[in-house]
């Protein structure tokens, strides 16, 4: 798309673009190139002895069952965060879309968690699920359910999924609500006059009309579950116990920062770049479609 009427200056557009391009070049392209370069090198922490090793870092990575476990953790975690947060959000949005008293108040009370940082959400969840400090954690132990997410990998995964999903609901809620409100009233009236039951009306009429929103949210939720949840995991479980809650981002961080293995960390960055590129392409195709209808 391009407009017909434009300004003719020669230098000005470059000046206007310069800040963004300079920042992008220095802090996006240079590091990305470095990641690719490092991923083919093996070096000690100080970078004193550097050796080209070809694809060895990648081979090591995928030969490491722990890394495959981490990839699986990432998929499992993202799946449940997405399903839970979208499910709850859709339910709340459908209800909040009904013509009831206090609609706007409900909306306000349901969107503010959007503002909470993942790491802060994690702190809130500590006070819910900590085995000796948390409300629910203590209650569970009180009822004889042995609850300690610091020792039990499945429980740890459950807590980080709940915290991440909780934080994501408001965002999804807003989009679903907007999606619902854009459905033409005439369509709903026609369905109501047909005498279809409310649930039937929802699944046969409303839900299909929401599918662009749903699909869009799906991509966004998966992306954010993969990339924006470092804080939740770091503050709640530190990737443990074992490596039960380690995700791909977390592992790349630990290998680079704590284990000082730059080659492997860079190789993981490259893997992540490929993954996010795939996700973005899906999203981009979708945006294109949306822009055109």
């Amino acid at each position: 798309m391009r407009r017909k009427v434009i300004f003719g200056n020669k230098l000005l557009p470059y000046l206007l673009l310069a800040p963004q391009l300079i920042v992008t070049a220095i802090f996006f392209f240079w590091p990305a190139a470095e990641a690719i370069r490092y991923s083919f090198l093996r070096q000690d922490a100080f970078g004193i002895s550097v050796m080209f090793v070809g694809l060895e870092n990648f081979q090591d990575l995928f030969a490491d069952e722990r890394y495959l476990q981490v990839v699986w953790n990432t998929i499992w975690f993202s799946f449940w965060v997405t399903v839970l947060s979208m499910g709850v959000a859709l339910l709340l949005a459908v209800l909040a879309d009904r013509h009831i008293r206090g609609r706007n108040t409900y909306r306000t009370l349901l969107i503010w968690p959007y503002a909470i940082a993942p790491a802060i959400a994690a702190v809130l969840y500590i006070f819910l699920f900590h085995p000796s400090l948390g409300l629910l954690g203590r209650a569970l132990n009180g009822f004889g359910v042995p609850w300690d997410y610091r020792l039990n990998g499945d429980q740890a995964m459950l807590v980080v999924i709940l915290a991440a999903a909780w934080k994501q609901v408001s965002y999804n809620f807003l989009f679903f609500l907007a999606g619902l409100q854009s459905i033409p009233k005439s369509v709903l009236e026609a369905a109501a006059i047909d005498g279809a039951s409310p649930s039937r009306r929802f699944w046969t009429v409303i839900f299909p009309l929401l599918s662009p929103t749903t699909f869009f949210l799906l991509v966004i939720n998966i992306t954010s579950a993969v990339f924006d949840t470092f804080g939740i995991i770091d503050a709640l479980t530190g990737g443990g116990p074992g490596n039960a809650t380690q995700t791909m981002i977390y592992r790349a961080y630990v290998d680079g920062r704590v284990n000082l293995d730059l080659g492997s960390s860079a190789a993981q960055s490259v893997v992540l770049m490929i993954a996010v590129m795939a996700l973005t392409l899906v999203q981009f195709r979708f945006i294109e479609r949306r822009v055109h209808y």
Partner: protein
Amino acid sequence: MQRRSLLAGSAGLLSVPFIAPSARAQTGAGGRTEIQFWYGLAGALGERVAEQAQRFNESQDRYRVVATFRGSYPEVMSGAIAAWRAGTAPHIAQVFEVGTATMMGAGPAIRPVYELLGEAGIELDPQRYLAGVRGYYSDTQGRMISMPHNSSSAVMWLNLDAFERAGLSTTDLPKTWAEVRAAAQAIRARNAAEMAMTTAWPTWVMYEQMSSLHDVALATPANGFQGLDARMNLADPIFLKQTEMLLEMQRAGHFTYGGRDGGGGAAFPAGQAAISFNSSAGRAAVQREARFRWASVVLPHHADITQSPKNGVIGGASLWALTSRNRTAAEYRGVAEFYRFISDVEQDKWWHQVTGYVPLTLAAYEASKAEGFYERNPGADAAITQLSRAQPTPNSQGFRLGGFVEIRNIIQEELERGFQNQQNAQTALANANRRADVVLRNFERANRR
């Protein structure tokens, strides 16, 4: 209008590095040479480090040590390494003991202690330092590479009130693991404490210390002191015995896993755990918080394996002098002077008594003893006893394993999987051994020259 002023403000902020602690030496006011010192001790201990630097600055007028807290130990280490790569390394970095192998392999990035002292014409006899401390930071020829700074050892902490409630003696305290197990059982049976036994630093206490005490290598040969080709030795029966014991005790409710690293440390001062294992440097916290009678004693050993346990190993950190472009002889000399200052008997004694770390030098230990410090603070010498009770063997002088942080985590992870009933002791050790060997091999490949 408002937007404009905001933008103007932001432009100002971006152009003026108003918080940019430069690591380059500057000759400050009064012609003093500045020495940047990055450390990783938070809280009260961090304040003592700052005080130590201040004492040095007041003791002379040629150098000024600027001590800066730069986050946790791993953060200080990775920060210092990144700074070195960027040519802005501090003069001195405090590096935790598990980082020793990485730093030793750093060739041109570091200046060994003996070299610095030699250039400065300062004589410091290595024999003055506690054997267990000196060995950890020396090369195979016995020359000190990094400067001992804050060293501790793991000791056993006992809640004597809980022991009394369980009908156990409060004077004849457990010395062997069999006695510890019996005590834990009694405590559980009488419900004398919420947790019978727990531990902080699981790998350090249960594997590293035990390897040293029983004169068994954690990695052969010689825990990596002889080169990069060491292999993990977790298949040794002592580790199986240790792991099986922990798993059995956990299943019986006699042992509560408190989490990785320092996580398990809180339960003792809070009075929840009757028996705990933690660094001797935790003394200050226990003294401040414990509302019960307690004792700190040397770690237990397996009597069926040895009757005379060897020395334990240290934990803590040492000081590393880093190189940088344009670093002058005067700056290195300042580092050497600081080393000499902290090794001085009076300074060392002060450091030992206010921090709870073991003294660096034997002289400071003797001086503290002569002052009656250990009579006033019973148990404060448990760590020193443990570190110096035997001549270190190749298996008990410490560890020089590349990627040791990762290896510690691997052992913790596999142990955790054991605690979750996902694997038995044997599998846990086999997995840990295999994974840790991979780390060692990667380190070997990356550091071979």
